[in-house]
């Protein structure tokens, strides 16, 4: 069966006639699995395609599955000899080395306590090994990663909502930013940290983000505006 893009696919169905790049390769993303005979759908969701040759299934999950290169928000749960244990909401806790921070040396250890929120990147993630996090890029710079301090608030969202927020054409964060200044860190593991100018603003932003899950892109502007205007009476 030729792939019908943007339609709902069910587990067990198979697709073929996939587009390839000039080397004859196709990239299969989450929800698709190649067996000897065909390419099968393994979870219910919408079939998506990106030029030239990427296919995947977009589905409304809640459980995060660690993937290499993802930027995630984790909570420090334990300090061991040479690494921290971080809860990233996946099936296993991730480890974060003391040395994986900008400017960290054996003598100069980073100031991280149990309970801190950390924005980090997954360096190692596969099904057979414990995931490993780093708080710097390949050049050794922090590049925005590290411990998130100075208050703010972290909320949890379903994964598909996070992926939608991170899409370049999503109007949510932009519309919010036009109306009030705030800081945010979006982890693809279903966690968002936000901080506004005051506690009330922080709560409002957090509520708007979590409530916008069922709001379409076209209604987003009106939705955000009405919620922010409702806030003005509270000051």
């Amino acid at each position, binding site marked *: 069966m030729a792939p019908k893009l943007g339609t709902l696919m069910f587990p067990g169905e198979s697709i073929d006639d996939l587009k390839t790049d000039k080397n004859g390769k196709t990239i299969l993303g989450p929800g698709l699995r190649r067996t000897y005979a065909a390419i099968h759908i393994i979870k*219910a969701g919408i079939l998506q395609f990106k030029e030239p040759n990427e296919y995947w299934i977009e589905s409304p999950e809640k*459980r995060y599955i660690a993937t290499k290169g993802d930027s995630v928000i984790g909570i420090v749960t334990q300090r061991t000899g040479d690494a921290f244990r971080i809860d990233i909401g996946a*099936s*296993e806790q991730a480890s974060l080395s003391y040395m994986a921070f900008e400017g960290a040396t054996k003598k100069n250890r980073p100031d991280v306590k149990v309970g801190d929120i950390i924005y980090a990147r997954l360096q190692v993630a596969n099904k057979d090994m414990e995931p490993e996090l780093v708080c710097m890029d390949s050049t050794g710079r922090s590049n925005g990663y590290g411990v998130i301090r100075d208050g703010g608030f972290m909320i949890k969202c379903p994964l598909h909502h996070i992926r*939608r927020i991170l899409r370049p054409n999503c109007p949510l964060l932009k519309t919010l930013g036009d109306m009030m200044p705030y800081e945010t860190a979006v982890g693809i593991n279903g966690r968002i940290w936000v901080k506004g100018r005051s506690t009330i603003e922080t709560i409002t932003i957090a509520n708007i983000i979590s409530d916008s899950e069922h709001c379409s892109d076209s209604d987003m502007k009106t939705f955000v505006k009405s919620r922010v205007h409702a806030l003005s009476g509270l000051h």
Partner: protein
Amino acid sequence: MKIPLPPGNKMSSSSKSQQLKGKMHLLSQADGSCSLSVGQTAFMAAVYGPREVKMNKEKVDKAVIEFMYRPKVGQSGCGERFWETLVGNTCETAILCSLHPRKSVGIIVQELQNSGSQLACCINAAFLALLDACVPVRYMVAATCCIITEGSTEPILSPTAVQEENAIAHMTFAFDSVDHNVVCSHTTGCFSEDQFQLCLEVCRKANKQVFDFYREALRERLSGSMIEC
């Protein structure tokens, strides 16, 4: 626990199975959940995982399926344990366990009301919750059951508790969604091989309705989550 049906609610037509009703994504803490009812029988299921597993249960090459059956009243006994194994194994055949080694997938099914067709409803509820949790599966699995009564040649599909009392044999079959092959079969009572084959084919035919119901439920579930835009 058997509840007598209200008068007038008699499903005697063997060609028409009872109406399936259900809703997905009800619980906030579980990764996947659903409630499902067939006639007067109702179940609620929740799926957690893939999550961490205890050291002694861990399997190095695949995920462990931890199935739990909670009866409406009292503690789960020997019969419930048997069902846990049966439905757990049925789910395990469909789940791609090798994709999550050293993990577990917890499935909890709570009986809300039992009024016949219990095992079939239990399997369907468990699987609908698995679909809601987006656990990777080879195919969808759905179950249908039927009974044979004395003197009647035609089996009765999705029987009520009252009908089950008069049955001489009770059969439950689970099929996959691709080739409609049998995944699980559970029978009680006395019957001939011909009767078994007849029931199997009747159930196989009726099972397509359950898959249609799955598809409809999933479509409803996804339309609320704004994935398409």
